[in-house]
């Protein structure tokens, strides 16, 4: 199956391993991965700061860039997927663009959602020995309603035991620009999240949004924790 890949700016520039492992994973499951090079940022930092109308020009460039092909567009992050799903509403005053945004949105999938519903994952053969906790990011679980898919996939990983932890569904405090604009509040949130995770002494923290993982991982490292922080694509590629 041909698929298109939306890397997200965080995975393109910083958490590059997440993007690489996602490509390798998709290839292993029989996909031909295409990467439209003119893709940019989904616009989230500006849009979530209130600059929606000021972002329309960039969104249109993005839509055009991703129209390079009409394959399913796979994104290894819930928040960026949710943002693309929001394009049609942002462009509601321009019907032609709204339609293009809708077409794009309809074929945009978050990674775990695509894996579970559109690919055969029975031959994954992933192995990771130890106890893992899963952080359901807000974008994935609440905005996209993707709750079971990551769990279904993680249950197929040999040797991995999933443990629940307190207040599991609470936001980690990232929130994009919130993490720097309201750094005090964000810092308190991630500190408590790290405490809750450490309270069950896992070997791995697993998530499906690189941004949340960068946030929680940054806090865990600050505290000298040895918990390994992994994106679900990395887990599914572990042997």
């Amino acid at each position, binding site marked *: 199956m041909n698929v298109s890949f939306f890397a997200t700016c965080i995975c393109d520039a910083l958490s590059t391993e997440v993007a690489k492992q996602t490509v390798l994973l998709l290839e292993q499951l029989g996909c031909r991965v295409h990467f439209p090079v003119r893709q*940019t940022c989904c616009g989230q930092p500006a849009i979530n700061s*209130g600059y929606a109308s000021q972002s329309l020009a*960039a969104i249109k*460039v993005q839509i055009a860039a991703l129209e390079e092909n009409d394959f399913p567009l796979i994104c290894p992050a819930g928040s960026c997927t949710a943002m693309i799903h929001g394009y049609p509403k942002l462009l509601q005053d321009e019907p032609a663009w709204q339609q293009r945004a809708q077409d794009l949105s309809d074929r945009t999938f978050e990674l775990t959602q695509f894996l579970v519903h559109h690919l055969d994952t029975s031959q994954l053969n992933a192995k990771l020995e130890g106890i893992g906790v899963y952080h359901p990011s807000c974008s994935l679980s609440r905005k996209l309603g993707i709750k079971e898919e990551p769990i279904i996939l993680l249950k197929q990983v040999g040797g991995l035991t999933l443990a629940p932890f307190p207040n599991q569904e609470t936001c980690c405090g990232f929130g994009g620009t919130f993490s720097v604009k309201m750094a005090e509040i964000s810092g308190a949130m991630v500190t408590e999240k790290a405490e809750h995770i450490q309270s069950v002494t896992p070997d791995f923290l697993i998530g499906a949004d690189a941004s949340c993982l960068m946030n929680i991982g940054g806090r865990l490292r600050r505290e000298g924790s040895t918990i390994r922080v992994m994106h679900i694509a990395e887990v599914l590629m572990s042997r």
Partner: protein
Amino acid sequence: MSMKTSQQPFKERIKVKMQDDVMRASVANAQERMFGNRARAADALGNWDDWRDMGASIRDHVLENLDYYLVQLSDKVIENGGHVCFAKTADEATAYIEQVAKQKNARSVVKSKSMVTEEIGLNQVLERNGIKVVETDLGEYILQIDDHDAPSHIVAPAIHKNRRQVQQIFADKLGYQGSDEPEELTRFVREHIRQYFVQADIGITGCNFAIAESGSIALITNEGNARLSTALPKTHIAVMGMERLVPTFKELDVMVSLLCRSAVGLPLTGYVTVLTGPKEADQLDGPEEFHLVIVDNGRSDILASEFKSILRCIRCAACANTCPAYRHIGGQSYGSIYSGPIGAVLSPLLGGYEDFQDLPYACSLCTACNDVCPVKIPLADLLLKHREVMANAKLTPLKERLTVGAFQLINKHPYIWQQSIRLGAKAANKMINNGDMRFKPQAVEEWHETRDLPHTSHESFRDWFAKRQNNGGSHD
């Protein structure tokens, strides 16, 4: 107290409040208890999401037909022998109540908990006239005798205090000598404030819901204080936000079912009181006079705006009980009597951006509040809308607008974006060492306060992908 409770800038306020360990422990504790109770009560009822849909559609129907129902309500109240005041502003509302108090030569007033009376600053107006005002809700009473401490929660206003602090306040202000057991503290206050109920010339209450078809008002409490406040004094004044009504008792049933479960996690609170007009000739108790003050104070403007859905709110505070930002900063940090997500949406609408511009940003847009709201208000979306209104009106800091402008410029030019990502990856890899950076821009500095910077690779993903493609590694 009016709506605004603090003169300090937001950032200074949260800095102070976040150091209050008692507050943080009390709020976290209460949040978990209330969140759990709410979830269990919702599950026990079953089909909770259908109930929420019903709640939202009832509220929307009322908002769509508010003019009709307000007239119906007003006609019925008058028919029942009561008086009605439509107050466009807070001042009009307090002036009317002041005038009634003067006519009655009132010396003392008992109040049951009401947010709208706080919003209009009623107590100060009455006290200015030498009238003794006693808050009879336990939480409100604690705050009142604690030198008018600001409320930190719309349902449980003293939630930021623990029992030892309450014991101390009672000891200092009322000579209390007992333990910090909640039962003993409560018994003491019950006995202490009983005298005020007996003396009071006027009882003032809020109004959870007014029922248009009968001209009744419903009061939902756990302490029974609203009943005493309305049964003993000769005059009862109920103050309501103009949107707080339901067409008939049928809809009241649905709203009460949603409110009690969402607010305190119970199928019903201790007391659900429905009052219809002053007492009749053959009745033994109840007020001789009943006044209903219907307060607009900016609500008409909200009704006509893109923030209309906030008027569905039934003041249950489920949003605050689930909000992680509220959890860490506490209610007083909002600087408004309305705190939590509902307060962050409502305060700028009722009180203006000048005083409350920071509140819509005190949110990670996690949308947990959207999920628990019993009337499905998209709170996080409305907070984002506030940010949009401020950005469009250029009320945001110039530096932010310039940064966003620069970001847009790069983001809408794929070639420049591509080069920025490549350079960014290289620079991050070079400059970040052991989770730190020698020269940190302000945003990085803020991040680094609590978190290390990430380990990165010198090569962007797109460069890796392009190389691999050239080497024939991928299929594309």
